[in-house]
């Protein structure tokens, strides 16, 4: 029996380690390439370790971009989207979870139904709409829609959470003459921290990595996001893989740091989206 257990443990650890190595190798190769000298990138056979180690590649990549400008642009867009989604999804969810009104459940079905619609269907009319409004080559098409409902799935997550908060809490406040807006802002919303974390993380990831949105709407280089900047970088330095890998690493870095700081919320958020679905 004990031997069987040891064998079982060895099998589990063996398989997982093999898989883990293959999952980490791409990142290792990325770092290794980012530190290689120009002449070493295309050495044959390919070299595992950079020799010499060229830290300067990161500085060169940053200047190439220009990284700081695009990082600032991406940050402005991302933060505006995250705040918009959290605030308006929570407001809307409160209206569906904590107030009784006729037709509530029918309207909520409509909210859920919008999740079935692929974004490609509305992509073209939205482009035409934003063009009419003179919003092409501005960040507004990427930000403003987030401030109107914050996405059906986020509304759903907030609503599910609000429903677990006992109604006595808001009822007591109502008797004390508290307005509905204050009950939301001071009692219910502060209790929903786990959902705020989940929604913020996924909104952040999605906006930070988004490519097709900026590709359609941003045309002049000084408005670019990091994703678009990286793409432009690729186009005019298609063989300088050490710089391209350094640039890609810098773009990924905020996400990696966030992942290690908030891993618990990443995991809980993932699990939440799967189990409630």
């Amino acid at each position, binding site marked *: 029996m004990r031997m069987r257990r040891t064998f*079982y443990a060895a099998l*589990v650890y063996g398989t997982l380690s093999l898989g883990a190595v293959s*999952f980490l190798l*791409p990142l290792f*190769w*990325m770092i290794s*390439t980012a530190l290689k000298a120009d002449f070493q*990138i*295309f050495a044959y*056979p*390919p070299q595992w370790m950079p020799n010499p180690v060229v830290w300067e590649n990161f500085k060169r990549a940053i200047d190439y971009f220009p990284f700081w400008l695009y990082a600032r642009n991406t940050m402005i867009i991302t933060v505006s989207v995250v705040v918009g989604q959290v605030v*308006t999804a929570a*407001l809307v969810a409160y*209206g569906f979870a904590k*107030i*009784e*009104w*006729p037709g509530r459940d029918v309207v909520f079905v409509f909210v859920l139904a*919008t999740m*079935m*619609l*692929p*974004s*490609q*269907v*509305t992509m*073209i*009319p*939205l*482009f*035409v709409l934003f063009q009419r409004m003179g919003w092409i080559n501005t960040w507004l098409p990427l930000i403003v*829609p987030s401030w*109107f*409902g914050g996405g059906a799935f986020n509304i759903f997550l907030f609503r599910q959470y609000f429903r677990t908060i006992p109604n006595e809490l808001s009822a007591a406040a109502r008797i004390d003459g508290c307005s*509905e807006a204050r009950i939301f802002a001071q009692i219910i919303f502060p209790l929903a921290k786990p959902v705020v974390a989940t929604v913020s993380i996924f909104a952040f990831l999605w906006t*930070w*990595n*988004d*490519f*097709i949105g900026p*590709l359609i709407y941003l045309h002049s280089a000084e408005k670019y996001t990091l*994703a*678009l900047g*990286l*793409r432009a970088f*690729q186009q005019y330095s298609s063989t300088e*893989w050490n710089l391209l*890998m350094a640039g*890609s690493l810098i773009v*990924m870095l905020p*996400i*990696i740091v966030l*992942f290690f700081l908030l*891993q618990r919320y*990443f995991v809980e958020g*993932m*699990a939440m989206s*799967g*189990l409630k*679905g």
Partner: protein
Amino acid sequence: MAKMTKTTKRNLVTALLFISPWVIGFLVFTLGPIVLSVYYSFSAYNVFQPPIWIGLDNYTTIMDDPLFYKSLYNTVYYTALSVPGVLVLSLLLALLLNSRLKGMNIFRTIYFLPSVLSGVAVSLLWMWLFNPDSGLINLLLSYLGIEGPLWLNSPYWSKPALVIMSYWGLGGVMVINLAGLQAIPTELYEVATIDGASAWRKFWSITLPMISPTLFFNLITLSIGSFQVFTQAYVMTSGGPVNSTLFYVFYLYRMAFENLRMGYASALAWILFAIIMVFTLIQLRLSKRWVYYQEG
């Protein structure tokens, strides 16, 4: 509607205020565009001149368009190889991680991390990994005495390359599976053990039925996601070589924003919507045979 009491009326007004951002957003950014999109799909429209009604022309042209079939084939090919692989591998990893051994958190972190990375940076990384002469993948293959293919430069290997890349992002699905496994009540296994059930039997009779709703959810969301694959093809292959990675949404994007055939692209979008709906409905039908929902 019957006469409302004063409280009901007040509640209705307050609730409408709360949901007003969604109502406005729904009308302006969803319902309006849906109506317009239907209209465009029956029109010739290049943005600069007003749309001209041409009836079903876009749809009939699409039915004779070889690139429509090509892009549909590429997308189905990609989905058919990517989704089952991700489903099986992520379940396998979740089962291993669910064993109560030490150090599982470290493995979970390692497998989960790549899935939160995506977009252009990841596409560039895999472009480099698949480089035929200087990339990691052919280097590893050479250790096994295999001369690696041209990957992204070959019309035969470009799609498999993108499929392999999609496996790297299975961590999110794995975490969802793990949460599903951990939600299974341990009493079920205890009772089965007392009855002398083998590990294999427990997997087929307890684990699989209990986790089947999660698997079904993953199947649907993954399939819809992989039907909309775009960034990889745009950045890594520009749809080539010889249109071997021209995926559906990429073709739609090209029609709309490179050729300015907005009407044609709108018709493509509605066909995509129909395909996704039919696929989902078929899966829902089939799911009655294999997905087990607990009472209550």
